[in-house]
């Protein structure tokens, strides 16, 4: 009955909309792949978890601050775009390209960043979320490295708006894929850099700490595991999670202190975390990540 009601509601929405016929079809297609028990509680839970996953931009900033040099060869080639011809691949690779664009932006490599605008635009159009990407403005900002802050702000805002929109349209499955693709690409870049600099503890710890985010992503994918593609991705990521299980993260809580400085509450965090991760762990995670990424981008 729920599905009938959802179908009727979707039909009314489509009938009332002024969008193109292709938009309607894609909307219905995406509904076909929503196989979660569509209760309001599930939707709220999914949205809550999605909101909490950190932006891949944070990892790019970390890499730059840890002194890693820019390396374009690690990124997914914009030439791979024609390979992505269904919603599943389009959403995953929109996430991948989004992370790549963020990485080029952070390193102020505008000539490379601009190459990602067209594939991002086309994938977004294919998923009927093209209206959220201000491609012309992004292109204009990307042309000048002095606009970095505005560029990061706009791209982050665009991706946030997309996630909110997809959730509101009961298409959070696409949000989950977008986010998974973005996270995997950030993982891939970090693992590649770590393998070139095995003594870098910051990179190793960053990789180890990703087990917290992977856990959240797996939780999200489980809502959609009755879908064949989602189940396959979930299986791969669960396999990756096994490699993370060897890593031990110990947090020692100590009450923080705070004071008000210039109208801001400045907190001093007195807790600490230790990440126990070996070079072998990093290597396993790197290989598995590369394997999953290869399935996604090819």
């Amino acid at each position, binding site marked *: 009955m729920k599905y009938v009601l959802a179908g009727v509601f979707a039909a009314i929405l489509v009938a009332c909309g002024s969008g193109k016929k292709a938009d309607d079809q894609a909307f219905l297609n995406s509904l076909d792949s929503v196989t979660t028990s569509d209760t309001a509680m599930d939707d709220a839970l999914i949205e*809550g*978890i999605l*909101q*909490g*996953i*950190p*932006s891949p*931009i*944070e990892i790019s*900033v*970390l890499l730059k*601050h840890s002194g890693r040099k820019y390396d374009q060869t690690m990124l997914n080639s914009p030439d791979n775009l024609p390979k992505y011809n269904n919603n599943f691949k389009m959403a995953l690779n929109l996430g991948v390209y989004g992370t790549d664009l963020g990485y080029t932006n952070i390193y102020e490599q505008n000539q490379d960043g601009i190459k990602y605008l067209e594939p991002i635009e086309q994938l977004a159009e294919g998923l009927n979320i093209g209206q959220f990407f201000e491609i012309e403005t992004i292109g204009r900002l990307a042309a000048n490295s002095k606009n970095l*802050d505005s560029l*990061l*702000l706009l791209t*982050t*805002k665009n991706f*946030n708006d997309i996630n909110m929109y997809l959730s509101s349209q009961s298409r959070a499955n696409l949000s989950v894929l977008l986010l998974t693709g973005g996270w995997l690409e950030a993982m891939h870049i970090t693992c590649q850099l770590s393998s070139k600099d095995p003594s870098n503890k*910051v990179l190793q*710890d*960053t990789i180890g*700490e990703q087990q*917290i*985010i992977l856990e*959240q992503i797996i939780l999200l994918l489980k809502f959609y595991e009755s879908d064949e593609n989602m189940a396959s991705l979930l299986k791969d990521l669960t396999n990756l999670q096994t490699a993370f299980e060897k890593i031990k*993260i110990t*947090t020692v*809580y100590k*009450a*923080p202190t*705070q004071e*008000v400085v210039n*109208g*801001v*509450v*400045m*907190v*001093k*965090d*007195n*807790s*600490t*975390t230790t990440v126990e991760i070996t070079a072998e762990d990093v290597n396993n995670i790197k290989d598995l990540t590369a394997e999953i990424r290869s399935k996604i981008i090819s």
Partner: protein
Amino acid sequence: MKKLIVLAAFVLLSAFISSDVIGQCDAEGYSNACIPKLATGFNFLKSYKIDSESGAKDKIEFSYVFTKGTQYMINLCAGGQATDGLVVSLFDAKRNKLATSKVNGEFISAIAYPCNATGIYYIQYTFDGSATKCGGSALGFKR
């Protein structure tokens, strides 16, 4: 009888319109306004809408995975007086309270939190004598 029906319809319509005006909360407007108010050097991550839904909710909570070595800033925006009684508090995954924007009875509009332990954190918004119970907030980060 006809006059009575017209009067009743008028009363109902007035009540509907007035409750709509009182209940209006432009949380999205406030959250967008908060983004440029993040301190210099902080990169925007998320904006949060704080809407009590006409007082139906007494707290609103979001989670976010914070990363060790990163400093986060959470700010508050509301209509009227600075924070209009909006309070933001931060909790770790084990629900230890780490920070609050109400300090010695004073409402502060931003919290800066340098994270030492990667994990899930809870950003909780409450209303302390708030007139509108409506506002927005932005989360930013810097290394």
